[in-house]
């Protein structure tokens, strides 16, 4: 039971990888808290959006084996 986590921009730089496979977490908030502590992410969860399987999703979305999670730091296109 695992999930894939994708990192972008400052999160990718801090993590040192573009993605990693991790055990299925209890929740998205628990996962981000754990990853923030491990990788030293500067951004608090309140400043991020999250995507599950390629689309934006609420932070309380249920997770399943094999899903792809991306934490989206504040965007700066344009």
């Amino acid at each position, binding site marked *: 039971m695992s999930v894939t986590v994708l990192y972008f921009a400052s999160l990718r730089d801090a993590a040192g990888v573009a993605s990693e496979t991790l055990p299925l977490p209890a929740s998205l908030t628990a996962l981000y808290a754990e990853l923030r502590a491990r990788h030293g992410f500067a951004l608090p969860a309140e400043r991020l959006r999250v995507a599950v399987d390629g689309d934006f999703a609420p932070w309380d979305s249920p997770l399943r084996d094999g899903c792809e999670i991306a934490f989206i730091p504040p*965007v700066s*296109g344009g």
Partner: protein
Amino acid sequence: MKRFGISEVAFDIAPLRQRLLSSRAGAYASFEGWVRDHHEGRAVEGLHYEAYAALAETEGERIVQEALQRFEIVDAACVHRTGSLALGELAVWVGVSAGHRGPAFEACRWIIDEVKARVPIWKHERYVGGENKWRHPD
């Protein structure tokens, strides 16, 4: 038809404009975002855009579709660059055709504002002197 795109290389706007031509349109408005040589008082040497491409395309397409519902326009499109860009290079283009100029201007402004706020693309600025920074606006 795809109305929002991510381009990893410099793109030509002439064919994009061509696709918006219509006998129903009496107006066309466009916006070009260019790479500027400064940000918040710091001299910028160049920049890099990174995208979560799959979601950027989905969200960008949604924005253009919303504009088509929200404004009295004929058609609209947007393309955003990713990769390394030099000063002065085209970073983003928006084009809108409409019956009249008012909705063309309004929709063009709305699309670029929504793209900047919603599409998962990030700017990495390289400053003169060697420092660099991901922009994550408040």
